[in-house]
């Protein structure tokens, strides 16, 4: 008998009184405005910007890029380019070997939605391509429509686009990469981005 059959057999033999599934969890009400989201993002070490208008976005992002990239490589996803137009950024070479992205200074991507409860931004697998980009880049900029804010993780997982899980990964990013493994002292930039900016876009 295979390990699979043996393990499942033991589980069936052990099945107890078959506890019922609890009814759906109903979370308490909470704010879902950009200010509430921004407050949690700051607590996570991220930088909220805005909300800015669609027209004012490119200028503000370019300003952040110049301060962060110091002339280094800046890549923007196709969706981000639609929002930004031309500027100090290049399109992401989507079919590139991810190893070729190790020198990216700033990456600019569009978030699927933001979570007010914890300052996390949902990154769809089709947007974060190659998958390594948002963790390999030195600094990360995410663009987020303020109309796409949800209250909490219950709403966030219920709001996943229907085919979101058919694209290998969907990642919630809450702040820059961090560690506290040395004496519990917080350090930003453990492996991934040293900084994260989220631009809220109005209207």
């Amino acid at each position, binding site marked *: 008998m295979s390990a699979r059959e043996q393990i499942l057999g033991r589980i069936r033999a052990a099945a107890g009184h078959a506890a019922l599934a609890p009814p759906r969890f109903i979370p308490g009400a909470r704010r879902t405005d950009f200010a509430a989201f921004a407050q949690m993002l700051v607590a996570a070490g991220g930088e909220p910007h805005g909300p800015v208008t669609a027209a004012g976005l490119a200028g503000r992002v370019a300003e952040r890029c110049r301060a962060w990239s110091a002339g280094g490589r800046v890549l923007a996803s196709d969706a981000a380019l639609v929002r930004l137009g031309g500027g100090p950024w290049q399109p992401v070479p989507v079919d590139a070997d991810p190893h070729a992205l190790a020198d990216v200074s700033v990456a600019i991507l569009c978030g699927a939605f933001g979570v007010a409860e914890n300052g996390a931004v949902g990154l769809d697998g089709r947007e974060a391509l190659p998958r390594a980009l948002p963790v390999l880049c030195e600094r990360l900029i995410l663009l987020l429509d303020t109309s796409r804010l949800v209250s909490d*993780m219950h709403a966030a997982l219920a709001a996943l686009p229907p085919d979101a899980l058919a694209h290998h990964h969907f990642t919630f990013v809450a702040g820059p990469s961090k560690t506290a493994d040395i004496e519990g002292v917080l350090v930003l930039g453990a492996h991934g981005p040293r900084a994260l900016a989220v631009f809220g876009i109005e209207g």
Partner: protein
Amino acid sequence: MTAALDRAATELLPAGPRLVAHDAAVFALREKRDAAGSAEPDFERLREYARAAKAHTLDHLDLYLERFEARATAAGAIVHWAEDAPALNRIVHALLAERGARQVVKSKSMLTEECGLNPYLESRGIEVVDTDLGERIVQLGHEPPSHIIMPAIHRTREDIGALFARELDVPAGETDPARLTEAARRHLRGHFLGADAAITGANFAVAETGTLVVVTNEGNADLGMSLPKLHIACLGLEKLVPGLADLAVFLRLLARSATGQPISVYTSLVTGPRPDSELHIVLVDNGRTRLLADEHHKRALGCIRCGACLNTCPVYRRAGGHAYGFAIPGPIGAVLAPALGRTAEQRRLPLASTLCGSCTAVCPVKIDLHEQLIAWRATDVPRGARERWLARLAARVLASPALYQLAGRAARVVWPVLSRRWPGNPAAAWLAARALPEHPGASFRARWRARRREGVQ
């Protein structure tokens, strides 16, 4: 206390500042957990839901495992089943060897620690680099992790500076956590870019969608999963959750209970492999079905490995994780060890607790940890000859008022002598970092008689 705990505790204890630093660092996490819990109005209801959801999932684990396997397979992953640690190690090694993988980056997984995967692969010529900063520190120092989520919390910045000066490109005397972390970042970036394969654990596996959920703050698991073309995820059977709605509850509890964050920095939902890549998922039993068959102890399988019970435990805080001699330290380790442990010493861990119940009070899935410890003590926990003799003696003394009074008189003579420091004091190890409490001087009965004589009611 078990002999191992006693030994390790006396290693940590003479270094006073080290003990204080360890205690402060882990208790700071407990305080952050408390603050996060009280700031979240849903918190207590989430804990209750999590308990009920785990009980349900464990009672239908066969169904959810089959569903997970079917959905993950449909998404392009290959699912393997491992009976025990040797089976897991063989499966992972075969996957790596068949593809000629020599360099592996690994993100934190208590399961592979439990199964001894690293030494197994290393003895077969495969280099395994742990990429979580704390895990890399203990790996370079050739020691096991001492905490579930803070593997190097027993080390000071001076220890780590000296280690990095020896092993990495760091000047001698460097103790700044930011500069030490930067050195590790540079060092590990090279390993990420050169890796042939990535091994990760998983925090949850969603049956409804065949999705693995991997949570980190550092982003090391995400880097590993996104560079090499082979990803092997190793997880215990108990990681299953029914659906995304249940996942939301556990994600809201996990980071709040672990570090006081409302969510960790990276929460990745992984369904199937990347294009042109492979995803292998190994489901591991290694004693878990034995726990499942135990009506009382199966609740321990609800653990989501947040570490809250370690951070609050008076024994863990003072003894450190190495004292347990088991991959998972602290109260949850002592509850799991009798079923998952391999040695008699590990199976004795339920004896190493004060039963104060603080662990139970903080558990996000409401495992009755101290009740579990008591229940293990009533079973066949292996005990030494001295303990058995002492227990029999105590039973005799406590059953007889005369013997009890005699023992009290003897204790009043011996106590002050043992409390003093003198060469050859058999209590010297205890007194090295602790004081015996002040002795009342007279028995309760004597004091009661005195009060009656003085006319006090």
